[in-house]
């Protein structure tokens, strides 16, 4: 009974209901809550694709033999390369590469078939347009695999025909990697991108909505009216934060639903854990937004200020590019980024299916960040109010 009395006889509830009504009337806000998670997740998931396929290959075949055609078809059959055009000379191929019409080139020299027939090692040249270094590296790796597969085929066939008496030589094979890809066997880039983007969105939307709602009160001067009420400043802030959290918690579920539906991202771990971490992430975003709001007097200023905060938070988080690609010191800095920890948790829960026993450091770090930022913004807000 005492709990019930406390719940009803409390200044928090009227304030909470006031905020909720304000939000309900704000059509723009509702759009802001539903549109970005859906549109961004779908757009990012589709657009940010690093997969290397359809590499446009220009071919110069100086050999013009069955052997050289065998090599060329080995390249095209693999699926990664597409025969774009044949060229008469290396110069013509070079010109097309310079004009950006091709991704790479294959030059088979005149003596290719002769060397093969003599049992010598024949050399072919692969040219890769390495303006996009990542794509170039992967394409070169594919080329190496095509050649290795061809060699294995030739060794098996040629060895058998050459000297049948020495069977041990024929079977002389080296080590071979047997690669198994865990968690994402189809190697879909979208799984990496969307699991990282959920965190970015939670922090971004949280901070935008929170700073808008705080600054709104300042801008229209109603903050004085709030201060006139018997409510304390902590109660005012808590009542502002609570409804936003309630709404954004629905966003987490929406986001998971979208990635599940559109990108077939699996849910292998506990959704409860993800939901809890998502709430922390939202709260961190609200903290950031409130903090920004304490420095600004208008919506415009608040939004411009967020340009200083949001891009680094989203880019330096490992959400869309690998953390290991960043310089060492930035990797260390990223430990204070809530998005980094949420990305790890999201990938752990959705893709890896691991639980709190493994993810607890990230959950703790996220909690710590959230407490500090919310604490700091409440402190600054109170200082301004008094």
């Amino acid at each position, binding site marked *: 009974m005492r709990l019930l009395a406390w719940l009803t006889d409390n200044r928090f509830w009227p304030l909470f209901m006031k905020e909720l009504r304000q939000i309900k009337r704000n059509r723009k806000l509702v759009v802001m809550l539903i549109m970005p998670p859906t549109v961004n997740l779908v757009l990012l998931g589709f*657009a940010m694709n690093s997969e290397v396929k359809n590499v446009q290959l220009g071919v110069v075949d100086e050999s013009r033999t069955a052997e050289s055609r065998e090599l060329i078809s080995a390249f095209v059959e693999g699926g990664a390369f597409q025969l774009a055009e044949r060229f008469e000379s290396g110069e013509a191929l070079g010109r097309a590469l*310079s004009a950006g019409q091709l991704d790479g080139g294959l030059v088979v020299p005149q003596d290719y078939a002769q060397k093969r027939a003599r049992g010598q090692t024949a050399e072919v040249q692969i040219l890769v347009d390495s303006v996009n*270094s990542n794509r170039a590296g992967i394409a070169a*790796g594919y080329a190496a*695999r095509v050649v*290795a597969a061809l060699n294995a085929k030739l060794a098996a066939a040629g060895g058998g025909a050459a000297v049948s008496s020495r069977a041990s030589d024929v079977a*002389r094979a080296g080590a071979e990697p047997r690669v*198994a*890809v865990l968690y994402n066997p189809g190697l879909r880039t979208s*799984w990496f991108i969307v699991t990282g983007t959920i965190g970015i969105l939670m922090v971004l939307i949280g901070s935008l909505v929170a700073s808008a709602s705080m600054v709104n009160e300042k801008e229209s001067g109603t903050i004085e009216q709030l201060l006139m009420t018997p409510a304390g400043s902590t109660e005012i802030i808590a009542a502002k934060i609570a409804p936003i959290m309630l709404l954004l918690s629905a966003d987490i579920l929406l986001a998971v639903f979208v990635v599940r539906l559109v990108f077939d991202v699996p849910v292998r771990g506990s959704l409860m854990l993800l939901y809890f971490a998502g709430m922390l992430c939202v709260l961190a975003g609200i903290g950031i937004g409130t903090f920004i709001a304490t420095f600004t007097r208008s919506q415009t200023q608040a939004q411009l200020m967020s340009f200083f905060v949001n891009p680094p938070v989203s880019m330096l988080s490992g959400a869309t590019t690998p953390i290991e690609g960043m310089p060492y010191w930035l990797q260390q800095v990223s430990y204070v980024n809530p998005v980094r920890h949420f990305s790890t948790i999201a990938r752990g829960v959705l893709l890896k299916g691991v639980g709190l026993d493994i993810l607890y450091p990230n959950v703790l770090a996220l909690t710590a960040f959230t407490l500090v930022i919310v604490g700091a913004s409440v402190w600054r807000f109170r200082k301004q109010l008094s």
Partner: protein
Amino acid sequence: MKRIIAQTRKELTQTFRDRLTLALALALPLAQMWLIGTAISLSVTDLRVVVQDMDQTPLSRRYAEVLRGSLTFEVVPLAADERPERALDTGDAHAAVVIPEHFERDLRRGAGVEVQWLLDGADANTATNMRNHANTITAAFNRQFAPEASRPAVVAKERFWFNPGNDEDQFVGPGIFAVGLALFPPLLAALAVSREGEQKTILQVYVSSISAFEYLLGKILAFLIIAAAEWSLTLLLAVLLFGLWFKGDPTPFLVSSFLFLFCSVAFGAMIGARIPDRAAAIQAIQNTCFLLSYLLSGFIFPVSNIPAGVRWVSYLIPARYYIEVARDTFVRGGGWAAVWYVPVALGALSAVYFASAWARMRHMQVEA
């Protein structure tokens, strides 16, 4: 003409009074370029890999040694009784290599031996790279172990054109240069135009003798000057930070730069003219200039990988063309023959965005 210049001067004076805006215009692009330019990279080094050696022979250790020699991996041994998947689950390692028992014996017999590689596929691009490395490293080991036996019939000598070291800075540098410039100039222009609508100072413009065309051109000229300053600073930073320099004829780049900045500012003016509310205008710019330029311009992920249903949007984004010309100038060096269409496309887009802004302002009347 006089009225245009007067409008430009008024706009510049106003901008220089606002410290926050000025910081946005000049400092933030540089800071962002530096931070994002150094942070964004798909090429990874020192990936941790656990190696479980079930064989413990000279040859199996040699395999681990070859692995250690590659720059990509940082090798951590794993005891035989532990589960290698665990290291991937916890995120302690990105890959696990299990060298099987009898590795040396089977190799000496000439039987093929499979070395198991478990890769963390959560990051698909890194996993693809690791898979390629698994092949390269094993091939290198085979060459060391039995050079005569593994003499191949065909070798491919690969050459990386335009960027011989396959250095990622050469890719990210020109990209971030373009993306950074795609955000801030239109943002400032949009703010300046929508502010007049929001604060109703636009009415003063309506009653003055200036025409909509002159008014817009004056505004655009002012922000074009600021954008040019930003462009010079950013270019300087790009040269210093990423070691970029002109590979060939710089004229396509210079012409495209002018058109790109004009196009970006005109786009901002259009947004500002159509949305007379600064907060909403910022949102619109953020969603179009930043998000779309970042996602659909080929900045990190190739445009050709975008599904066709969405790809057409990229043709409306100035940064998409500017990135191509920047990459050509700083890395490929193909000159006019390779990028002639860029100034054409940017010119056309400029005309469209300017006309759209003008169409909105032309009547010089407050809409009821």
